[in-house]
């Protein structure tokens, strides 16, 4: 078996979810190559070469891969796909945007967001908003897979893979990168933070989220939100935790003014310790919490900040 992993990176740094994907690939077994496609991505590539357990880092450095345009990155992957038994990526926005396009070109199906590797052709994934864990077997010659980062531990970084560059440029000219409106965030990455503090609709507005941010900064946490809080415009979309947002599983998840809808739970219920702060004693979130505090957030949050 030979596995190709599409790395998640921002050209400068490798994103942590790449490391979890490597662990999933190691569970399948075989040689692993890692592809870094981007513009001026040498620094991310050097970082990738240190991941333990991988053979080669393939680097495609060209302006046409800026913004990870699916058409171009897919064409690049297609140029080497025949060498591999498995093509994998973290189930990030990029992974989900690119791999199904590759799969259709290969005439194979995709296993999305796997949470366990049972054997080289059998995997587990969560469906129906986390209410069902399905074991699925693929009969495709090349298995195309996206990986849920929180379900696998990160691979170490003390290896030394060889580097090879892919010189041929695959510019399909079907789409055009215009710009990234990146939310500048000094805090820990939501999907890899040890502590996540999330706010829901009960936060009332964006300004009140600063109460969560102050606490987060004291304990090195990331700040998340529910769909309701994002839809209401309190905070940007990249903070949404849940079935259709980001999946997190920190050591500690603090849910503030969040009711506990199944779609939100799907994104955080694998957290080690869950704390719920809600003024409604009947809020469903309390059924999932290891520790529940019935309180008004405007009393509890200042007190929490003071005490930390």
């Amino acid at each position, binding site marked *: 078996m030979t596995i190709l992993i599409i790395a998640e990176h921002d050209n400068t740094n490798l994103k942590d979810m790449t490391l979890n994907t490597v662990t999933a690939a190691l569970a399948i077994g075989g040689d692993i190559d890692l592809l870094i496609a981007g513009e001026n991505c040498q620094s991310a590539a050097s970082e990738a070469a240190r991941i333990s357990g991988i053979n080669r880092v393939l680097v495609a450095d060209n302006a046409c891969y800026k913004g990870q345009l699916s058409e171009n990155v897919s064409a690049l992957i297609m140029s080497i796909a025949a060498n591999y038994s498995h093509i994998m990526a973290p189930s990030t*926005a990029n992974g989900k945007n690119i791999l199904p396009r590759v799969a259709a070109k290969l005439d194979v199906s995709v296993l999305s967001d796997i949470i366990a590797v049972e054997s080289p052709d059998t995997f587990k994934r969560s469906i129906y908003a986390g209410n069902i864990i399905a074991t699925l077997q693929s009969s495709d010659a090349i298995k195309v897979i996206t990986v849920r980062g929180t379900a696998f531990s990160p691979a170490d970084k003390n290896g030394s893979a060889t580097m090879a560059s892919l010189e041929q440029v695959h510019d399909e000219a079907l789409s055009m990168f215009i710009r990234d409106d990146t939310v500048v965030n000094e805090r820990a990455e939501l999907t890899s933070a040890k502590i996540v503090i999330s706010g829901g609709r009960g936060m009332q507005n964006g300004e009140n989220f600063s109460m969560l941010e102050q606490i987060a900064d004291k304990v090195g946490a990331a700040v998340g939100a529910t769909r309701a809080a994002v839809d209401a415009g309190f905070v940007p979309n990249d903070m949404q935790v849940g079935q259709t947002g980001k999946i997190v599983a920190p050591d500690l998840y603090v849910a503030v003014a969040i009711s506990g809808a199944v779609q939100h739970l799907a994104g955080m219920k694998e957290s080690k310790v869950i704390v719920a702060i809600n003024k409604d004693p009947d809020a469903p979130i309390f059924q999932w919490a290891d520790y529940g505090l019935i309180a008004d957030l405007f009393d509890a949050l200042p007190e929490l900040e003071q005490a930390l």
Partner: protein
Amino acid sequence: MKVLVMVKRVTDPNVTIRPNTDSSDVDLNNVKMAMNPFCEIATEEAVRLKEAGIASEIIVMTIGEKQSQEQLRTALAMGADRGILIETDATLEPLNIAKLAAKVVEQEQIDLVLLGKQSSDKDNNQTGQMLAAIKDWGQATFASKLDIKDDKVTVTREVDTGLQVIGLNLPAVITCDLRLNTPRFASLPNIMKAKRKPLEIKPAADFAIDLTSRIKMLHAESPQVREAGEMVGSVKELIEKLKTVEGVL
């Protein structure tokens, strides 16, 4: 410009789905069904494009069992012009849905296909990307804003780091995310009118495409339940537990 909207019949997002008795699959007997919420957003966007004079005709299509006509009627009541049901009792994988869709796109000479970003039952998040691949068209997934001028579309996409803006040439495939719009409720007169809009039914077998599944479900189970937690009386007590019992602070 001719727009094709793809809608999927799914289990109602408010229903808890459980495994069947021998854990070989999920139990969908007598479960309430609904239109995938992301498909409502796709339908709404198409209707707005028509209201803005950009779309000339909206065809809404679904692939599934006979009862999926209900979801087509809902889309017609929201403002789509006509419906196509590709009928099959099999649960098809996104690859096969995309192959059937590609045929309809060719037959109907579609300029823009709008889909949901993911189906709320299986969370595949694949069909639009696969259709774009089969057609060799440009794709924009997770759209939160569209701007169409002549044969060019500017799309704002929801990505992990915030938003990304890309440009596409038509024809193209776009998958819709939550913040693109808020779908309308169909009015009673429009629901009545929708009953008379054309709805064509074609058996999937007529398309002469190999629709064999590549992925087999071996087992379905409920996730492990979390152990019951405890209520704390104060912030002080909470911090104490997190520090000493859990060691996470």
